[in-house]
């Protein structure tokens, strides 16, 4: 394949190809999408690995993410410091995990982190309430929300400690074959 691009070195592109689920062409396409978000900030030459972070506001305004109620959490989970500002590595990682070739375990792991709003390693009732509120845009009453959370905990909580651990979540994901098709962003 003609290596006419000057953005990455050959080794960098190979490394990206080996560590993500994308091919060379897709990685270049993703790079140009990233660059389009902040043309003044992102240089066109990544051979020297510049340390550039695109702020969250620009990431959240991407057409693929702007109507997603979980876009802030997604950006936070994949960013280095948890603040939503993403480097190119974070960006590629995010779309690689959300692509259709990522395996179920990997997606379940990141989905767990996304739904864990307070970042304590468990999905507690408060996290569930946040999730349901975001899902329904606040149009369910508080009573209904807490009912739903109770039912979810009753169904998925295996060791009955009142919150979902990673294993409980992964166990539940295994029973939902649609997870692979819904937890997927096309880019």
């Amino acid at each position, binding site marked *: *394949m003609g290596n006419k691009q000057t953005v990455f070195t050959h080794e960098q592109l190979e490394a990206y190809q080996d560590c993500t689920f994308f091919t060379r062409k897709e990685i270049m396409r993703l790079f140009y999408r990233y660059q389009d978000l902040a043309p003044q900030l992102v240089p066109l030459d990544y051979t020297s690995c510049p340390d550039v972070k695109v702020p969250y506001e620009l990431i959240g305004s991407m057409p693929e993410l702007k109507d997603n109620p979980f876009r802030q959490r997604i950006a936070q989970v994949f960013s280095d410091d948890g603040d939503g500002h993403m480097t190119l590595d974070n960006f590629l990682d995010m779309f690689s995990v959300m692509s259709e070739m990522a*395996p179920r375990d990997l997606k379940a792991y990141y989905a767990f982190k996304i739904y864990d709003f307070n970042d304590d390693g468990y999905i507690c009732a408060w996290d569930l309430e946040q999730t349901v509120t975001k899902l329904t845009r606040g149009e369910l009453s508080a009573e209904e929300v807490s009912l739903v959370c109770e039912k979810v905990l009753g*169904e998925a909580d295996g060791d009955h400690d009142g919150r979902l651990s990673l294993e409980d979540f992964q166990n539940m994901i295994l029973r939902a074959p649609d997870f692979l098709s819904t937890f997927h962003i096309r880019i």
Partner: protein
Amino acid sequence: MAQPLPFVLNVPEIPEDHDREPSPYDESEVHDSFHQLIQEQSQCVAEEGLELRQRGLGAAAPGTSGGGRQALVGPEDAAAHSTATLRILASMPSRTIGRSRGAIISQYYNRTVRLRRRVSRPQLGGVGRSARPSLRLYDLELDPAALEEEEKRSLLVKELQSLTVAQRGHMLKGMPLGLAEKRSLREESRTLTGKHRERRGRRGLFPCCGWLRDTCVLALHGLGLWLLAGLHGLKPWRYALKRIGGQFGSSVLSYFLFLKTLLAFNALLLLPVLALVVGVQAAFPPPASPGPVPAFTGLELLTGGGRLTHTVMYYGYYSNSTLNPPCVPAPDGGQCGRETDGLPYNMPLAYLFTVGGAFFITCITLVYSMSHSFGESYRVGSTSGVHAITVFCSWDHKVTQRRASRLQHDNIRTHLKELLAEGQLRQGPRSVCGRLRQVAVLGLVWLLCLAITLGCTVAVYAFSELMIQVRAGSGRPPGLWAGGQTPASLGMGPRNLILKMVILGILCYHWLGRRVGALRDQCWENFVGQELYRLMVLDFIFILLDTLFGELVWRLISERKLKRKEKPEFDIAGNVLELIYGQTLTWLGVLFAPLLPAVQIIKLVFLFYIKKTSLMANCQAPRRPWLASHMSTVFISLLCFPSFLGAAVFLCYAVWQVKPSGTCGPFRTLDTMYEAGKVWVRRLEKAGPRVSWLPWVHRYLVENTFPVYLVSALLLAVIYLNIQVVKGQRKVICLLREQISNEGEDKIFLINKLHSVYEKKERSR
């Protein structure tokens, strides 16, 4: 099974404790293997413990207790727990999963080791499927030489570089680490490979072998990546599918993906037929048939007859002899020699084996994709858990348009409300009358549909009998009656399918049973091929009409006349069943009209664009939740079972039992089509046993019945074993679930005890 840890209370930090008299809970002797672990963990999460407490105070409701079980008096509740307690809680192995890189690294180290040593029976925790990282974590964390993160990392790197390139790539891609981390792991594992290569080179007897092997593997890997990139570039309609998914969600997208799958199947069927049958015959055309050849008018595309009858399109065109390349007379003016330079090509054999082989390949591919799809969507012991699935798995991240996104919000809200209402209803008394009424109405509708089906079947049969008596050769029987199409928007999905399949069955019986007799001295295969071609054209026309009236006109009516803002929903099930019907026609007809898959491909391509345009302009996404992967499994199974199986039965019957017509086609002198193969085998036998082993295979494996019984018995045994394995897995899942629940109770008990102990200590200070 996992043993509960010998629990260790290590409370060295608070100096006042040393003054008190030792209590039974105050173990000052610490188990060595845990000392370092706990110290390490508590050092790096010391702030975490305090952070937890603060954040716990900030978080609203405490964890609700499930039913009548013990309430967890967790750190989120009590205001002042001792830092020692919090430190111990924060260092619980289950807490460190998913948070510390060290835990992930050790988990993947274990996975890599297991992969490398190829442990044949995976542990009950499973390797890829069920993830219980806490079980696997014990392998490394309980190691007496408790390792620092750096050492764990170097162990992982060493394991990685002993894998093959493909395995390493697979392992790296699946790790939930950041991309920068993965790249550095990859770098390190590759450089170490280089060093090892050198060492091996100096030592080994054949130093070049290892290097050669590595280079070959790398080259293949590169080639594979290049091919994949090419394939991805070829992906047709990528942008169109993205737009459809973005505007309508995964459910409507599944229809278009199914259409793409059908295209692939047709291409798979067409390629061997094109290469081995159609192409060869087109290159060596048979002698022109006597009589005038009709001129080409546009009407042939609709009726399939006329000019097309004398082309490669239909069975009758193919010659029944061995094709030789046209001989060039020798330069000295001599005759053509009997032995020509090129390879003689036995047309009947090629026809039979190509069609048979293509069907076989299609069968294998279908069964494989069906089992793969089934494996993805079915889980042993999967109970409902519908609320959890709705909350976590129902948001479709592909949806990118504002309007569609709002629709999704509404759908999920409605669905949650329905679930809650259903839950409450179930608690109330259920009236027997209401249920009986529901069942009665459903039964009545089914009876009605079956009666209509029966009526149509009888009508079709009677009509075809009539046509035979009217000497069908005089006129072209109209194919209109064979449509039996009801508009898909009536929503009679499965019943419609039954109707169509039954009618197709009647037609097949009619063709192979009665028509063969009636058209004895004409080319009945051509007739059947033409019928199927006409059915396909009609099917296409009906789909167009259906799209026009069902979607466009309905939208116009509902907007202008009824003044509703709602667009019609896209009927996924109905459209998919139409596709399956069209594919059945193709499979039925490929023996009699080898170019029918090409017609189907053209039809599918047109259909894609027409349906897409109509969808974008006229429709909205379905309101009811759609289990995309369940439905794709159902579609592929429907494609396999009534559709492909029926076509295969039809083909087998036509090849084995029906006498081919004597005036046309590649089998005109034989009793059955299968005889072509038998004749060839007999000829090979006569040529002597040294020529080929095929006659032996034919006599002892194909004509003998014993191997068939053996294979069936083996198949039954395998199926029985699988059923038993599934039963066993179900039992194991129940037991494991119970154990998890018990462990949870144990944990709560211990934590509560811990808190009470420290509280007593604090109070008595």
